[in-house]
């Protein structure tokens, strides 16, 4: 181990990869002044947390400021809505400003449903420690009596997590206290409150999207998030949450027809959104009901105009819900696109087989793995036969009869 000697007498609980070396990268002081952000290890990009720790890990540490995360909604919009609320709640806790736009629910209602942060957990939590899983028994680490060889092996952790702590934990069973919520500064855009203006100057664009883009631009310029403007005294992050873009409630017909009239309305809007975000201190999460959009090529161009893209596929209502293979999970998560920003090589996830589940209090993303097969019957018999056949082929003919009783 390449650890310096003086760090060896520290209690092992405080070990983190950062303590192993005294060499520290010089960081720019300018970018560190905003609470709730940190620079990326890879390219120095300023990151904010998405509110879900495992999602942060998946996206390479967090959401880069100036980018758009696209979430393809699951069929009932229950889990995508949850991630959306996590993202906003993290903004409230970090005292970022919010911009919430919706066509279906009033943004006020969305804000009232935000999950409650587990704040006392933050105080206790040490940076090197793995996040505590609620279902994990913590006191079973006694010395093993039989399988003592395995005692020192690290615990298998299927939940994705990084070693250092970033973001907060939330209890989805409770809603956030009103006093925390009211401390946050936020802007709203509720589509029914903005009647169409019947100007019709931009042919490929819809009035609803133009009004949304204009309202967002006004907030960015007024509140000093614009990077091209002269620096205000203190900088903050604007978190933009746009709910269910492309649905019929926005006046869009992408979801209704095979050949929609406004094919380019949403893509043009996303192009404008990207242009707006790249020059400002803001980060956006956009959800799109992709299962309603028939045209896959259109969905591809929507994805390419966002930076990150993930898709949620819930088991609810599908035959997979009753499949024993998936009994531990609530759905699958597909990574459609990873951002490529200010660097040649982008962060790629280790696997693409990912699943999510909603525990009693917490939403997590895990590697998909099959449950251990504890039944005595089906698969083992076939494995035994396979092993027998293999040994027979290797001309160990005397051992074939006894090999049937072995599992390996």
């Amino acid at each position, binding site marked *: 181990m390449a650890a310096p000697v003086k760090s060896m007498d520290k209690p092992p609980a405080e070990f983190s990869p950062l303590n192993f070396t005294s060499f520290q990268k010089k960081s720019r002081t300018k970018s560190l002044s905003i609470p709730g952000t940190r620079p990326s290890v890879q*390219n120095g990009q300023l990151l904010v947390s998405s509110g879900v720790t495992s999602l942060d890990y998946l996206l390479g540490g967090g959401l880069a400021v100036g980018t758009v995360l696209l979430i393809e909604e699951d069929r009932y919009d229950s889990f995508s809505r949850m991630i959306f609320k996590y993202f906003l709640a993290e903004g409230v806790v970090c005292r970022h400003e919010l911009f919430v736009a919706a066509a279906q629910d009033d943004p006020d209602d969305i804000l009232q449903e935000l999950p409650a942060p587990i704040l006392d957990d933050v105080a206790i939590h040490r940076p090197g420690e793995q996040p505590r899983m609620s279902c994990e028994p913590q006191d079973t680490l006694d010395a093993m009596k039989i399988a003592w060889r395995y005692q020192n092996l690290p615990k298998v952790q299927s939940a994705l997590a990084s070693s250092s702590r970033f973001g907060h934990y939330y209890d989805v069973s409770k809603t956030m206290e009103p006093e925390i919520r009211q401390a946050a500064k936020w802007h709203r855009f509720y589509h029914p409150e903005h009647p169409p203006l019947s100007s019709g*100057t*931009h*042919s*490929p*664009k819809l009035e609803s999207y*133009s009004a949304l*883009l*204009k309202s967002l*631009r006004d907030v960015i310029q007024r509140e000093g998030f614009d990077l091209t403007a002269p620096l205000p005294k203190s900088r903050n992050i604007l978190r933009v949450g746009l709910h269910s873009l492309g649905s019929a409630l926005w006046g869009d017909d992408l979801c209704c027809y095979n050949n929609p009239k406004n*094919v*380019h309305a949403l*893509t*043009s809007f996303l*192009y*404008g959104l*990207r*242009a*707006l975000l*790249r*020059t400002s201190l803001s980060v956006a999460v956009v959800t799109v009901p992709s299962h309603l959009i028939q045209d*896959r*090529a259109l*969905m*591809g*161009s929507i994805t*390419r*105009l966002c930076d990150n893209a993930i898709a949620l596929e819930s088991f609810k209502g599908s035959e997979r819900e009753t499949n024993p293979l998936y009994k531990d999970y609530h759905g699958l998560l597909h990574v459609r696109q990873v951002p*490529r*920003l*200010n*660097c*040649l*090589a*982008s962060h*790629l996830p*280790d696997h*693409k087989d990912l699943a999510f589940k909603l525990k009693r209090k917490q939403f997590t993303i895990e590697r998909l793995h099959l449950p251990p097969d504890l039944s005595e019957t089906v698969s083992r018999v076939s494995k035994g036969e396979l092993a027998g056949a293999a040994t027979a082929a290797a001309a160990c003919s005397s051992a074939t009869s006894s090999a049937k009783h072995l599992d390996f």
Partner: protein
Amino acid sequence: MFTELNSILNTSPESFTPGEFILLSDRQSDASFLIHHFLSFYLKARCKVCFVALVQSFSHYHAVSQRLGVSLTQAKEKGQLIFLEGLKESLSVFLPQEENAGHQAMSFLRDPAAGLRSLYEFVQSSVVESSGGGGASAEQWGPPVLLMDDVSVLLSLGVRVGAVLDFSHYCRTTVCSQLQGNVVMLVRCDGEAEEDDADDEGSEQLMRGLTHQSCLTLHVQGLPTGYCRDIHGQVEFCWKKRQSDGQHAPKKVFQFKVHDKGVSFFARGTSRAVL
């Protein structure tokens, strides 16, 4: 600039074939690293470069180019590089404000169905002035080069496929034929290969049209066997018939991995991860 790629293409900044139209395309992968390559390649070759960046900001290209050893701001100051930042200019069209009228080049966004005439006029003015007059400028640059990232985003903005093909043909005539320069364009295709048939009016059709116009195609795609962390995809190099020696150059396929400061190319199945 990736030296491995130069040796595959048998070219170098000192000697490259003028008058070529190079098409970069990708499917289920990302070919934007090739744009970075050609940008730094032509800047090192002392060409006059006109870069139409539609999907990324200047700061992105600047940050990456710096890692590849080229400074875009210096090139811009010297007059070698003309950079059109599509994102920034589009904003003044989408959200018009009183004080700035916006760049003329992106004014096609007001009425995308009408075609890309304004963008072509921008390209023409920036490449022609370099080769024609401009004797007062201190340095003389080589043949003009037009680089465009992600032409297919124009389709998302409402431009017809035919208009983009017309635009590329005009650019090819001006830059490649008249001025003996090069054109490099990137086009991105959606998902699943060729499974949907002729009714697909979109990026597929655009790619076929541009492939027909091009002299050299670099087609990047994901691995057919699925996602792998150590091999990011494969590149297919297709040359069209060359006039000089009159023989077909063979089609080559390489797998690649993108690193922080470069890309390594290797023959299929010879990745370090599997050997």
